[in-house]
């Protein structure tokens, strides 16, 4: 993994200063401790969500890293008692889509999809089948992958997913339905074409 060593190696002022603010006598230690605990709890899920968006292990972990830093910077904006997981997922997906827009290029996930996760399926047939699915999944648009992942695996309701993605519930339902339909079509054809780069 090539997470950048700079930000990890020491806490930059951009993170330390917001934390110091958070630690003021009013709400400080409790909130920062809460954020810390919540991040640790969410980390595996953040990684899974990031992987589903980027399709790339390294880029996904970079995204998670940046989302954590951003969450710490914005810690004083988090309201205890609200859904932390949804809050930090929103941060992560905004980072991903902003970065994608900046680069004006969608991810190139197929090589990574081929490279990763080959050892988990219990048999060769199941493994090949799962690899087919993985490839098909990664040819969906990022918005479709996002909706399908949040609703189908992340444990979010449609309304929560809509809030995370900043769109209407109907849009999420439509993306999920279309994603399922496209996956079915691709897998029924037993032929998955890589999606040409597409901006979100």
């Amino acid at each position, binding site marked *: *993994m090539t*997470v950048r060593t700079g*930000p*990890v*190696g*020491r*806490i930059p002022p951009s993170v*330390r200063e917001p*934390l110091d603010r958070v*630690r003021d006598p009013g709400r*400080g*230690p409790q909130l*920062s*401790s809460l954020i*810390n605990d919540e*991040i*640790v709890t969410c*980390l*595996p*899920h953040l*990684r*899974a*969500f990031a*992987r*589903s968006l980027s399709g790339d292990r390294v880029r996904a*972990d970079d995204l*998670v*890293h940046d989302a*954590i*830093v951003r969450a*710490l910077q914005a810690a004083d904006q988090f309201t205890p008692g609200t859904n932390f997981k949804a809050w930090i997922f929103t941060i992560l997906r905004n980072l991903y889509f902003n970065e994608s827009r900046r680069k004006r290029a969608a991810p190139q996930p197929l090589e990574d999809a081929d490279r990763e*996760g080959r050892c*988990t399926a*219990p*048999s*060769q*047939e*199941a493994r090949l*089948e*799962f690899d087919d*699915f*993985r490839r098909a*999944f990664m040819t969906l648009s990022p918005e479709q992958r996002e909706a*399908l*992942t949040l609703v*189908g*695996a*992340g444990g979010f309701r449609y309304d929560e997913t809509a809030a995370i993605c900043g769109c209407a519930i109907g849009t999420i339902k439509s993306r999920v339905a279309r994603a*399922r339909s496209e*996956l*079915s079509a691709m*897998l*029924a054809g037993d032929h998955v074409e890589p999606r040409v780069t597409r901006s979100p």
Partner: protein
Amino acid sequence: MGESNKPARGRNRAVADDGKPRPPGALRERWLEEKVRQLYQEVVDERVPGELLEILDRLPSEDK
């Protein structure tokens, strides 16, 4: 274990326990949902890289 859950097509269409043809759409949808969860869970089950945990470990402690 190695049996495929992939929805059958054509003449191999799945049949429900009562002998009636299973709705292919529902079967396919369930299969897809399982795969999405599997894809997600696969990453959740991975060991979190130390580099990510270091961010939190290196935060200044509250009693400083």
